[in-house]
């Protein structure tokens, strides 16, 4: 028996039927991580004792008949979440030896449901990056081909799920950091509507764009994880007081009558032919299953990258002002005075991409440049958002590629920040508009690297997104397989 091959739902069934214990599932996960993570570097912290203690508690809960479908299921958490008692460093040196003294709401809800948190995963420092290579602790490798990036910023969570270390994981998505690695790693990932999941206890990057979301290997597993975490939280004033519908029920609805919009702007310029063909193929399957495909226009698509790479750095420069070496995190030694301590701690603690974004953001907010840069970007954001509002007057969901190309080779783009930014063009619009977006595998390129279909819904329209994704999964017509990582 190799329990690491199971989905969350398969684990839940086996646990409830008494065919396996959470301790066994957790030991299997830990063994697989120990055997293969030397090749992947998906994890920054593997918390063996912490995980096994949760597993034993889950087994008692199962025995007492007090279990939820997540009770006893091992999961991975991105390092930019606070999980009480575990290191939390946002993959940055500036956090030093920080150990979380409190719990994020998202992980608290998973733990309350009985999930077993195995540890913390690697990602681009402060979630700023698209390949995982800006982690202060070294890059994660793609389980499909170790020479490639698994995507980013949530590189480790995506790789850990694709490599079957765990059946589910948490990430954050500010400009595509869940959807793009889900696409490049051949798994399912969803960024929910802004406000759907509390942001309390995650390291803030860009507060008007950041959103928590799950990775899994099936749409139904992702729906279960979202269901568990969603809903208003008094500790996050931007969490939405909107009822949480039944996402698993939505997965069973079928595609008949769904109107799917396909934005013509998402298929132009620089899209790899393999990616375009796989996405067109997926749309044909959905059409064959009863959905209606409609071409639509999102006319301001070409301005998304420019608007985003002012707004996100501006918010980041403000959020990251708190890292000054005073009360927690890294502090430079041998400094002249307080001011010198601030600047040296920040110089030595922040990596190159975080430094760039702080500089860009500070510039965009600085006296004399604010209106010309930040003000303009915020107005462009209004136009980008309106494009989606207009589109959703005529369609239920929008389907598109996730990224112009499949995974990139490690090292290929790390010194070319602008090229890295431009590759985010198909995901960042969704963050600017605050919408839900789900990605699931729809094929591979000629080199065998996965391609993901992106399904975008209206605000709080996750049900339609899950409905479409599950319908495609059923109609896909091939069994998705998982990469083997040799120890």
């Amino acid at each position, binding site marked *: 028996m190799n329990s690491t091959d199971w989905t969350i739902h398969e684990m839940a069934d086996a646990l409830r039927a008494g065919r396996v214990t959470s301790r066994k599932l957790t030991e299997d996960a830990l063994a697989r991580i120990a055997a293969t993570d030397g090749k992947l570097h998906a994890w920054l912290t593997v918390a063996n004792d912490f995980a096994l203690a949760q597993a034993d508690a889950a087994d008692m809960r199962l025995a007492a008949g007090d279990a939820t479908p997540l009770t006893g299921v091992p999961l991975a958490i991105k390092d930019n979440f606070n999980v009480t008692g575990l290191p939390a460093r946002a993959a940055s040196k500036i956090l030093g030896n920080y150990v979380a003294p409190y719990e994020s709401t998202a992980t608290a809800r998973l733990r309350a449901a009985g999930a077993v948190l195995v540890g913390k995963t690697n990602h681009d420092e402060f979630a700023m990056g698209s390949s995982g290579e800006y982690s202060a602790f070294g890059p994660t490798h793609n389980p499909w081909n170790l020479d490639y990036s698994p995507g980013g910023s949530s590189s480790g969570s995506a790789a850990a799920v694709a490599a079957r270390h765990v059946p589910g994981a948490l990430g954050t998505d500010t400009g595509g950091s869940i959807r793009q690695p889900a696409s490049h790693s051949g798994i399912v990932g969803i960024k929910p509507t802004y406000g759907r999941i509390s942001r309390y206890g995650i390291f803030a990057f860009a507060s008007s764009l950041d959103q928590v979301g799950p990775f899994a290997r099936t749409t139904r597993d992702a729906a279960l994880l979202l269901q568990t975490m969603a809903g208003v939280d008094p500790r996050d004033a931007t969490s939405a007081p909107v009822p949480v519908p039944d996402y698993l029920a939505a997965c069973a609805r079928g595609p008949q009558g769904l109107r799917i919009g396909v934005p013509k702007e998402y298929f132009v310029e620089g899209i790899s032919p393999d990616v375009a063909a796989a996405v067109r193929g997926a749309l044909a399957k959905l059409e064959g299953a009863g959905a209606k495909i409609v071409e639509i226009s999102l006319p301001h698509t070409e301005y998304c990258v420019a608007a985003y790479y002012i707004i996100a750095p501006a918010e980041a420069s403000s959020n990251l002002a708190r890292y000054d070496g005073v009360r927690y995190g890294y502090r430079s030694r041998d400094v002249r005075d307080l001011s010198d301590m601030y600047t040296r701690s920040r110089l030595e603690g922040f990596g190159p991409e975080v430094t760039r974004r702080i500089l860009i953001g500070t510039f965009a907010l600085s006296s004399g440049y604010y209106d*010309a840069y930040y003000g303009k970007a915020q107005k462009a954001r209004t136009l980008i958002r309106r494009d989606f509002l207009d589109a959703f007057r005529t369609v239920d969901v929008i389907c598109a590629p996730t990224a112009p190309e499949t995974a990139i080779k490690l090292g290929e783009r790390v010194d070319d920040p602008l090229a890295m930014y431009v590759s985010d063009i198909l995901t960042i619009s969704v963050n600017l508009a605050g919408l839900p977006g789900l990605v699931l595998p729809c094929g591979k390129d000629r080199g065998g690297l996965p391609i993901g279909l992106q399904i975008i819904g209206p605000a709080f329209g996750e049900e339609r997104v899950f409905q479409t994704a599950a319908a495609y999964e059923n109609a896909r017509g091939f069994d998705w397989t998982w990469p083997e990582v040799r120890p």
Partner: protein
Amino acid sequence: MKLVIDRRLVLHVAALARLQVKEEDLDRLTRQMSEILGYVDKLEELDLANVEPTSHALELLGALQADAVQAGLAPEALFDNAPDATPPFVRVPKVVEGGGDA
């Protein structure tokens, strides 16, 4: 805008952000900022005269908390993460030079 990003401007912005930039990184950062902000000039093509800015994507009523006393973190737990502390104080280097008469 046709703004020229030079070393002086990068150093000015770095000072605002309380970031020290190493001399050997300055030319690279200047070039990269110049490329990125040059790309952003694309927004100039848009007519934004009558467009309202968006600071948040969704018009939501904030989830306000009841104005009631709640348990928080124990203060001791916070000092565990401090680089240099003698609870209830955090120690930092000298704030101002000199001393004596103020």
